[in-house]
């Protein structure tokens, strides 16, 4: 494993001087439930994309194409906000994806 930078190599005062670098911090391992989206049910209303606090819903050309599992913490907001008549997202225990 690469050694983390030392005190001479980091900005002073705990400052973060690189905008948007939170993306480099992969928080996906915090997840205990994974959102699983049924593409047949999804109406691409993008409500999940609006509500996701981690910008983890991947949208291409106005359509939901997947979830960024490197950053999704599994909060379940997407599943909760998915319209009642649609219910395209199910939260599945992360352990079920393990070998």
């Amino acid at each position: 494993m690469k050694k983390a930078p030392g005190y001479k190599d980091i900005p002073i005062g705990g400052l973060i001087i690189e905008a948007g670098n939170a993306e480099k911090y992969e928080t996906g391992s915090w997840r205990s439930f994974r959102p699983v989206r049924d593409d047949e049910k999804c109406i691409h209303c993008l409500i999940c994309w609006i509500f996701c606090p981690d910008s983890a819903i991947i949208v291409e050309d106005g359509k939901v194409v997947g979830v960024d599992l490197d950053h999704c913490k599994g909060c379940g907001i997407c599943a909760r906000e998915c319209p009642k008549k649609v219910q395209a997202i199910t939260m599945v225990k992360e352990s079920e994806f393990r070998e």
Partner: protein
Amino acid sequence: MAKVRALTGNHAVSEAMRQIDPDVVACYPITPQTELMQKFADFYADGLVRTELICVESEHSAMSASVGASAAGARVMTATAANGLALMWEIVYIAASTRLPITMTVVNRALSAPINIHCDHSDSMGCRDTGWIQLYAENSQEAYDHAIMAVRIAEHPDVLLPVMSMLDGFILSHTMERVEILEDEQVKAFIGDYTPLYPLLDVDNPVTYGPLDLQDYYFEHKRQQIGAMENARVVIPEIFAEYGNLSGREFDIFERYKSDDAEVILVCLGSTAGTAKVAIDELRAGGIKAGLVKLRVFRPFPHGELVEALSGARAIAVLDRSASFGAEGGPIHAEIRSALYGRTDIPVYDYIYGLGGRNIFVDDIKNVINLALEGKAGEMNYIGVR
């Protein structure tokens, strides 16, 4: 050319602030500092400064406003005393740890309880581990000079730490003295323009201040602060020398008064150094080789230089104007003993004095020096307590 004025310590510092003309000043009254900010507010009302003067609702807010303004990229000053400093405490640490070069004058006053408005050093000595550089003034002239030099020390790129400049409450703050005031242009040229490293208002280069910093990096940031304080040891004498040339007054990290050939050396700081000089002159007239080391910079503590300055003596007496409850002696004593440990076995006697503004007299100091010389003092002593 400098002007000679008759000024109180508070007024002298407010003159320095007028000449520095900081971008932002956070202002909240507390005895004995109130008059300092009141004078500065007069300058503000008269249009003599371009400062944004923020009248806040508490000292916690004063330091918070200072932190915010400094992070935004402003040159920031504030002032407080005693319980006001205590209320600031949380943010005092944050200012230093965020590496914001704020400068603050502390008009030393005893901490409550019981309530007391007079001078001791319990307020600023309690701050000795907050990561601020600390300068102590003997008189109003030094309080003025330190306020100006503090700006340069704090903003030096190798330092970037806040600086706290102390003057003794009432003894200096409310007493009129002869003070030489530099020309406004001289001060402005000396302090120069401030170019902040990471100003929040630079929207083209966005930065985050105050993020979470856990087991992975917090330690490294503390190590940086320790390094910055070490860098200050190099930077402070350079700035003292430069200001010395400008003002014609000499500044060293500590002052040696007749200590070079002294058999007994007294160590103290603040206005008591003036009284001590009279005591030492009188003892010398009586054939006793006494000397004084007056501390000016308490953080970073000049341990190496002090060993050199003190090791010729037979005995050392330390005057502490604050107690460190449960510790072995007061804060200055602990630092001196630690500096000398393993390098010399000269006895060091500590004297706690002047708590809550109790006066100290020339005869008290002569007595301290005589007892130290005769080896008759205990390790812990008190002057004038009943």
